[in-house]
């Protein structure tokens, strides 16, 4: 993992510096004098050769010091740490929403292929998959935020101060993200289950006289879970890296918007740390996914 992170850090550093754009010119604006531009370039340490900049950055990063934001001198670690709870909260809430929607829909439509329920589920998946998240978000805001006034249209009040408002503010962004993820999971679950339902051991289980619920939950669903967990793991990783659009629509203070802001300002130090932490989160999620495989299928554990 460490060599991979090192390689990633180098690649990220180089790619970020290759993107056209200059933080000094960006921040100084069109009326800046040459002296002002030079002063900002020096302040950001961008007057040094790229390899020197990388080695300096890496040395600091190994000590846990990811530097300061170019645009406000805020410690990068603090900026990211402030956003991480919101991101984790949103990602996992969305994953829970997705599981709650997709599992019943996927299982039932696989058990009754060709039925009206299956047709409606397929239609739901196709629509949810195709409709852009920002549209779903705006529609939810219009309905629940403006018309019914049931949920706050945006923001994230502190849980400690307003726990009910906090949870209410989570519902719409989690649903917006969760519905899109549910569409994917439902399709995967349905097709995986249909494959498994055709297997000999399922027929054998039924021939043994096992109840249908036991066949479905113990023999079919369990064997269906591996690809579904893979998808869920990858998608949760995606959610952690930033559901930028949903965060923008609901003014959710997550890592996605921070990343977008860092890209917009070419805030290299913030962007480097941001991307590196996202890669790390991906790796951890993948590791977690591998561990869950073992729980679901003991054969993997023993192998």
């Amino acid at each position, binding site marked *: 993992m460490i060599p991979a992170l090192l390689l990633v850090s180098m690649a990220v550093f180089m790619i970020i510096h290759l993107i056209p754009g200059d933080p000094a010119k960006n*921040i100084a604006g*069109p009326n*800046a004098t040459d002296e002002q531009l030079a002063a900002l370039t020096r302040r950001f340490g961008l007057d040094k050769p790229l390899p020197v900049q990388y080695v300096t950055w890496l040395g600091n990063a190994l000590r846990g010091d990811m530097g300061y934001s170019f645009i406000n001198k805020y410690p990068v670690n603090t900026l990211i740490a402030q956003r991480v709870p919101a991101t984790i909260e949103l990602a996992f809430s969305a994953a829970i929403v997705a599981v709650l929607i997709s599992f019943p829909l996927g299982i039932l439509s696989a058990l009754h292929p060709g039925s009206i329920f299956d047709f409606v589920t397929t239609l739901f998946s196709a629509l949810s998959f195709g409709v852009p998240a920002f549209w779903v978000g705006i529609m939810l805001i219009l309905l629940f935020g403006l018309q019914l006034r049931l949920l706050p249209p945006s923001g994230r009040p502190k849980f400690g101060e307003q726990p009910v408002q906090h949870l209410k503010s989570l519902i719409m962004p989690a649903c917006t993200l969760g519905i899109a993820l549910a569409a994917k999971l439902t399709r995967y679950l349905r097709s995986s289950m249909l494959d498994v339902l055709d297997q000999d051991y399922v027929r054998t289980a039924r021939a043994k006289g096992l109840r249908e619920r036991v066949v479905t939950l113990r023999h079919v669903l369990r064997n269906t879970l591996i690809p579904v967990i893979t998808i869920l793991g990858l998608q949760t990783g995606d959610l952690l890296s930033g559901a930028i659009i949903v965060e923008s629509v609901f*003014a959710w*203070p997550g890592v996605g918007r*921070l990343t977008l802001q860092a890209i917009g*300002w070419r805030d290299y130090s913030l962007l480097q740390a941001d991307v590196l932490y996202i890669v790390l989160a991906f790796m951890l999620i993948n590791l977690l996914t591998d561990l869950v495989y073992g729980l679901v299928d003991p054969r993997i554990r023993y192998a």
Partner: protein
Amino acid sequence: MRTKWFFVLTAILALGLVTACAQAPAPAGEVVKETVVVEKQVMVTPTAEAAPTEPQYGGTLNLSLGADFVNFDPFYDVQNLEFKAPIYEAPIRLSDEGGFEPWLAEEWEVLDDGKTIRLHLREGVMFHNGREMTAEDVAWSAERAMDQEIGHHLGDRFTTGAGATVVDDYTVDIEYTEITHSALDGIARLYIYPQEAVDTIETVPVGTGPFEFAEWVPGDHLTLTAFGDYWQEGLPYLDEVVVKPIPDPQARMVNLLAGSIDALWFVPLADKALLEEAEDVTVDMSPPGFHFYAFLMNINEEPFDSQLVRQALNFAVDREKINLLAFSGEGNMTVIPVAESSWIYDEDLADYYTFDLDKAQELLAEAGYPDGFETSILIRGASGLYLDMAQVYQQDLAKIGVDIEILPTELPQYWPKLIGSEFTIVSHGTGDATVDPQGLFEGAACCRPFRNFFGITDNDTWFPEYKGLADQAARSQDRAERKELYGQALRIMVEQGWTIPIAWRQQIYAIKDHVHGLRSDMDGQIWLHEVWLSQ
């Protein structure tokens, strides 16, 4: 059998959901609510009439500027630069009449040496950190503003600054190598903060304004509370101001309508009419005159080195169509970069270029391009008005044989290209941003001492005359003479045609009717010290 029950239960659940969704817009309880709404509508008028006319104390103003703050140092115009006045204040401020008025300084005077502006400061002005503001602080701020090495945005407003001297605790001299007419513009933006706060000012703002910093949760909100020791007795009226970053314009609008914010800035033109229809919302905009949308040409690039080509491109602009298609019919179009309210406004020049493709074609032929040419236009940003304007323009240019490629450019790439004059035409927002016309003639519209995007040099035969007129007008103290000189310079600018003004760039904001006393000045600065809520 059990599977059947499972299916039936799920079906019932699904049906329940569908039924709930179907009922959601008008459940029984909501019908009553609708009646209440009608009652409220009836109530609104008398309530509005009976609404308190005297300012009320207390309450929280929730507002959104769209983007989040990134840096609170008032010397850097990084983001949300319109929101400085609630926290920071300057010795003087822009008045509604287009001049200046005393603020932290009770009065100012130009000393006999002609190179010094003396500020007489108010006594008893406190910083949010509990210390009194003195002449030392103003002198320190002024010297910092003059320091080009820091790399902040005030530097270009103090290019002739020579230093600052404390005369006594409440008197300070700002010294210049030469006092220009835009010197006061610089002082009006010289936001004072205590020297001891310099290391943390970027994240923890400390000023003398009516509201003091309470909390900033990046990406979520900025909270300011009323400053108890504010120098204007009885102000501010509000207890608290909360600024929420809501990047999505539609979400921002819905938040206003739903009541989770009381005011929002940067309303897209396309949404202006929609918000105007809302019963409890007032839509307003900052006055024209400071900033404008324009197509700018790089006259170093062929064929824009030809005045005839530049004029042809001016005649090819259909402002009416651009207004309709890009500005949703809400644009305040202009041919010259001078507003009607300005004392150098010239009615004769205001219609110098009309939409005339035949004339444009004729000029192109005269310039040696009877079949037109190929070029490109750099767009500020990847979408929005700058792109929309260019797309409309592109269609008309095609009719005279000018094939123009549109290059949408995200901002981090855009600024270096603009500053480096790496464009032929650019769709840009520009302006003088000074009360005195001097800024227009020296700055955004042309050249020195600021950066010259347009590639204009002394080799351009008309330039020495233009510069001479602008310099002479800048030094003159006689307004009639200045008007005459600027008039001539403006004529050269219009005839040379390197800048094609399209429309005034005005800041649109929407506020709920229970918000009173809000002020947005010509520079777009938001003033909240007299804001009060009637509910």
